[in-house]
């Protein structure tokens, strides 16, 4: 039995099959959540936005074109949700546990991330925190265009044509942005001590 494509599942969901939506959710939950979390630098906020994105999918399912591709459509919705979230964040004044610990610091690190996870080795916690801080620093360093391409490629695992369709840019532009983003990553982590330490252990 061949696996149904995203487009077929979306068509079935538009026709009223709730099971098709479950399959789509199962396929894209990891990549979308990673994309959102990396973009926003906030896991809790990413979870809220993840729910909002899929609710938009449910509400606007009839706007999905049958000849289109589902992944670019989904991540376009996610990008718009992120833009809306950034606009709302500018108006937010009160800090909470979900709020970034340092406004000018690495993106994605929040107060909850600094709390140790239950049952985790303290040394591993330290290494994990350092690595996450380095990754957040790397993403902050990237220009937004390169970051989007990099996140869509590495976290969402979209193909370059899908990335180009999602961002509305030429295919070569997407590949070029990816090249620069990877060069930046290599410079930061190719000789990174954490990479050497954690490369054999984990």
């Amino acid at each position, binding site marked *: 039995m061949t696996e149904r494509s995203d487009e077929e599942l979306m068509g079935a969901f538009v026709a*009223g099959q709730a099971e098709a939506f479950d399959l789509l959710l199962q396929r894209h939950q990891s990549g979308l959540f990673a994309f959102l979390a990396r973009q926003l630098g906030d*896991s809790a906020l*990413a979870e809220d936005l993840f729910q909002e994105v899929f609710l938009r999918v449910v509400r606007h399912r009839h706007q999905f074109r049958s000849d289109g591709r589902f992944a670019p459509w989904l991540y376009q919705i996610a990008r718009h949700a992120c833009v809306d979230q950034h606009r709302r964040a500018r108006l937010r004044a009160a800090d909470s546990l979900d709020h970034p610990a340092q406004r000018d610091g690495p993106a994605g690190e929040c107060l909850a991330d600094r709390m140790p996870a239950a049952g985790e080795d303290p040394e591993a916690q330290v290494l994990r925190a350092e690595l996450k801080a380095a990754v957040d620093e790397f993403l902050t360093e990237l220009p937004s265009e390169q970051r989007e391409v990099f996140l869509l490629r*590495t976290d969402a695992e979209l193909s*370059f044509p899908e990335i180009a369709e999602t961002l509305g840019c030429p295919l070569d532009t997407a590949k070029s942005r990816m090249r620069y983003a*990877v060069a930046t990553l290599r410079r930061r982590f190719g000789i990174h001590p954490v990479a050497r330490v954690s490369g054999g252990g984990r």
Partner: protein
Amino acid sequence: MSDLCHVLEERIGELAGGADVDPTLERLRAHAEECPRCRSLLLQTERALEIYRRTRPAGPSGATLERLRHQARSVLLQERRAQTAWAWNRRLAVAASFVIVAGLGFYLLRGQIERPAAPPLIEHRNPIPEETREPAPSAPKLEQPPEVQAAEPRPDAGSVSPLAPEEAGEAKPPREGYAPAQPFPAVSPPAGEVRAPQRRDVVPQSSAPAKVEAPSAPAEFARARSSDLASRERPGEMSRESPADAYESSGRAALTARQPNPVVARCRELGSQARRNESDQVARGSALLAAADCLRAAEPEEAVDLYLEAASADPALRSSIEQRLLDLQESNVLPQAVRDRIAEWSRGGA
């Protein structure tokens, strides 16, 4: 540093991902196996990506996923209900439209439906042409005494109503040019009963239906009976009343009317005939008694004479005659001479 090294450096982002299948990328990978610089570059890039992927967020919580599934199902269910409601509303609208159209059509066509039924009614009301008329089928029945008709109804006696000739006991073909009233089902009276027509517009205007209208009122019946009584030769066959009562009532009627009564004259004639009957005294006495009863109210003095003659003809009638004479005396209609004569007759008999 060859051209392939430049190409690999430019496409290192595509190579590091490793998902896309491209012949150029495969050739670059093969080049990286041979070129130490390119191999080092590719290894560092893949290692950096591996480090980056280690920090990949775990994913949304199960509660969030479950909430999403529930909301998706709720939205689908609401949409399905809305579609069902819309479908039912559409059906109801179609049904209501159909009912309205049907009612309107019925209302508009009702006049056209009723108009075709009018011609038979008009045709029915038209007078029957003279050449197609026939005498009323039951007109000859009036020759019999109506009392006899009413007393002995024949089971097969038909109605004389012209509205229902087919319901008469005698099978008669429908008259030509006379519609036998399908729009107006005829209600025939019970067998033997003669009823006047109730619909003036359907009564034929010929002379035959006039005979059909039998006298049913008591006054008309009494008149017919009295005229019939006058035409009878023998009083005993006139009616079921006793001859004496019949003649007495007729005599009283004549006396009240103060007119020459043919019944009285006939009774006198019968009395004269009885007087001439010398052969059978018993029959003579009975005839005289009957004539006296008839004349008792109109001509009491003549009745007294007849009573006395009847008593002398048949002595067996004496007791009944004495009672009749006593009644006459008590009625104070007799002159004194006659009353004395009666008293003398009574004493003589005693």
